[in-house]
């Protein structure tokens, strides 16, 4: 499974939405995620990929695509180290 698929699965599970609605353009607001859903999704993604996503970075995500790109680059960074 790709990073994108894994993150989509995590969010779908936490927010209780169908994976199909989580497009790359979708925002947390679009899928009706509340602040608790968002922090739980961030924590689950952190634990899945062994990375840390500070709120300072998370606040910059405009949509799901940004979130995926951020995690992909952090995972790649981690693998280089």
């Amino acid at each position, binding site marked *: 499974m790709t990073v994108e698929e894994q993150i989509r699965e995590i969010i779908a599970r936490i927010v209780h939405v169908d994976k199909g609605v989580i497009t790359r353009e979708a925002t947390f607001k679009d899928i009706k995620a*509340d602040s608790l859903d968002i922090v739980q999704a961030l924590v689950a993604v952190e634990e899945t990929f062994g990375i*840390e996503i*500070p709120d300072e970075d998370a606040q910059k995500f405009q949509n799901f695509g940004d979130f995926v790109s951020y995690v992909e680059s952090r995972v790649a960074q981690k693998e280089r180290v």
Partner: protein
Amino acid sequence: MSLKGKLALVTGGGRGIGRAIALKLASEGADVVVNFFRRREAAEQTAKDIRALGVKAEVIRANVGDQAKIDEMFDMISNKFGYLDILINNAASGVGRPVMDIDVKAWEWTMDINARACLLCTQRAVKLMEGRGGKIVSISSLGSFLVWPTYAIVGVSKGALETLTRYLAIELAPRGICVNAVAASFVETEALKFYFDEMLNQANLPLTPAGRLVTPEDVANVVAFLCSEEAFMIRGQTIIVDGGFSIYSPLFSLKKTD
């Protein structure tokens, strides 16, 4: 009051009330472990400010709502220092909702971080205080007995924290450990802005006889006192820091007399 040579852990110590407590304990001479969960930059800044006071500071990331993460945090403290003198249970979270909209997820999240973490952190901390005694102070809120809009889950969690404080105070007294809590009214922090808008904040000012809102430093001063030997005989209490807000009746005129 001197806390020189003591080691303190402040959960949620990176910002707001936790940061003020961490800095106050450091200014009294304590080395401080700053726990944070979501804001690393803020925690690193607090640690830097603590070191500038001439004491040691460590930053540890842990979600105190997760037992495994609490264990990891205490394992690190145990390995690095092997002791602990002061535990400040300050980390808090919550979901602002009317009571009828509270679901299991929101309940568990809030209770795990605000109440269960006090129990689990205390259980681990007590082992590191073995043979040396210690001080445990947990941060509560007036919302444990006053009813505020959408504050229900947090209020309930703080009620649990205060009751736990009383039980711990008695059970841990023979081990030389003092346990207390501090409850503040509206404190000017980022969290306040999250839960209540500025308007509500201003509405409370005329109801505070002390003439201003509570600052994080006001809370930190009382916490530091409870961590001192001068407070040795205070056990299991929740000290209210609110400028008179909770006991004031608007029937009184607060106009100064000549």
